[in-house]
C-alpha cells in the first residue's frame, strides 16, 4: 500500500491543480495578479532528492506526459520540461537533505526553471506574445513567492515522511 502512496499523492495533486484549485482561485483579482500552482512538481523534485535521480526522472516524465495530454495544447512540452527539471534538481547531496533551507531553495529553483522554460517554449511556438516586463509582476513574481512559501511549509513533513514511512518500504 505504501508503495502506491507516492504516485497516488502526486496524481491527486495533479488533479487538484486543475479542478479544486481553479474553482477557488477564480476570483476578480485575476487581472492584476495570479499564480500558477506547482505543487505536483515540488513532490516530484523531493522524490528525486530522497529516492534518487532515476525515480525523479521517471515521475517527471510520466506526470509531464499526463499534464500534456490533459491540460496542455501542445504535446511534449511538459514531458520534456518536467523530466529535465526533475533530472537537474534531483540533488541528493547530504548537505541538501540535511538543511530545510537548502531543500526549499532547490525546489524554488526548479519552479523558476520550469516556469521560464515554459515561457520560452510558449513564445517560441507563438502561444503568447506578452513581453517579460508585463508578465513579471502579474505572473512570475506571485508564482515564485507563493510557491516558495508553500515549499517552505511542506519540506519538513515530506522529508519526515520519506525518512520514516517510505524508507522501510524502499530499504529492502
Amino acid at each position, binding site marked *: 500500500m505504501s508503495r502506491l502512496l507516492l504516485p497516488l499523492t502526486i496524481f491527486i495533486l495533479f*488533479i*487538484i*491543480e*486543475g*479542478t*479544486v*484549485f*481553479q*474553482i*477557488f482561485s*477564480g*476570483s*476578480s483579482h*485575476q*487581472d492584476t495578479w*495570479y499564480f*500558477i*500552482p506547482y505543487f505536483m512538481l515540488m513532490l516530484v523534485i523531493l522524490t528525486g532528492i530522497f529516492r534518487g*535521480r*532515476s525515480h525523479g*526522472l521517471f515521475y517527471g*516524465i510520466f506526470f509531464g506526459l*499526463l499534464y*500534456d*495530454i*490533459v*491540460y*496542455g*495544447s*501542445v*504535446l*511534449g*512540452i511538459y*514531458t*520534456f520540461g518536467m*523530466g*529535465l527539471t526533475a*533530472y537537474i534538481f534531483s540533488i541528493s547531496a547530504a548537505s541538501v537533505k540535511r538543511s530545510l533551507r537548502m531543500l526549499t531553495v532547490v525546489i524554488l529553483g526548479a519552479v523558476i526553471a520550469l516556469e521560464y522554460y*515554459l515561457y520560452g517554449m*510558449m513564445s517560441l*511556438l*507563438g*502561444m*503568447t*506574445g*506578452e513581453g517579460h516586463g*508585463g508578465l513579471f509582476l502579474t*505572473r512570475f513574481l506571485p508564482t515564485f513567492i507563493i510557491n516558495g512559501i508553500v515549499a517552505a511549509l511542506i519540506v519538513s513533513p515530506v522529508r519526515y515522511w520519506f525518512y520514516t514511512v517510505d524508507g522501510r518500504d524502499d530499504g529492502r
Partner: protein
Amino acid sequence: MNPFFSNRRLIVLLVCLIFLVGLIGYSLSEQRTLSWPEQFVQDSVGVVQSAFSRPAYWVSSSLDAVGDIRDVYRENQVLKAQLEEHASVLVERNQLEERNAELEEALELESDLSDYTSHHAMVIQRSPDRWNERIGLNVGAQDGISEDMAVVTSAGLVGKIREVSQFTSTVQLLSDQDAANRISARSDGEDTAFGFMEGIDEESGYLRFTKIDMELEVEEGDIVSTSGLGGIFPSGITIGEIVSVQSDEYGLSQTALVEPAAASHQLDYVTVLDREAPGGDDNSEEEEEEE
C-alpha cells in the same frame, strides 16, 4: 556517486528531446483529432476530475450563498421593478414569435441560422498554467458533442469545442491566443457591421473584433453577437459590448475592443449548442464521421 550525465540517463534525455520535437510537430499539425491513447487518458482522468469538481462546486456555491444573503433585500427591490417590465415584454415576444412562425411557414423556410439544440455540461477542469485558455467539460462524443460547437453561459458566448474524446471534451475560450481561434461576428448599432473575433488584446485584456469595414459607424456600447455566417455557430449569441474602436495598423479596416458578456474566469456550468442548419462545406465531413 554517479556522474551528472551517466550514459544511460543521457540517452534517455536525448530520446526525450527527440520525442519532444516530434510531438510538437505532430500536435501543431492542423485539423488534428484526438488519437485513441489521448482520448483514453482524458476520459479516465475526466472521471476523477468530475469526482473532485462536484464537491468543490458545492462548497464554493455555499460560500457564495453566505455572501449573497446580505444583498438579498436590495436585489429583491430591483428585481420587483424589473418584473413588471418583463411581463409586458413577454407578451410582446410571444406575439412576435407567433407572427414569425406564420411568416416562416408562408415562405416554407425549413431551418434558420439561429436554430440549435443544447447540451448541458459541467466544467471539470481548467489548465492550471494560464498559457492557454482552455476548460474541460464532462460531456463527449457519446453525448452528441462534436468539434467547433458553440459553448455559452446564460450571459453569452464563452468559446468553442476544440477537442472531443468519448466522455469528455475541451473548450477553447474566446480569450485563447491561437491563430485558428476566429469567430464570425456582427455588431448591431447604427450600422450592422461584420467581422471576426480574434483572441485577446494583451494590453487591455479585452477581446478583439477585427476586419470591420472602414465606412461603417461602429460605436462604443454596440452589442456584438455571432453572425452564424461561419457555418459553425448559430447566429444571435451575445459576445459582448464594444468599449473602444480604432483603425488597424494598415488603416484598411477597423478593430474594436469588446468587453465579453460572459465572465470567463469563473465558469462552472455551461451549455453546448448544436447548430441545426447545415454548415457550408463541413457537411460532407460530418456525414463521413457518422458512419
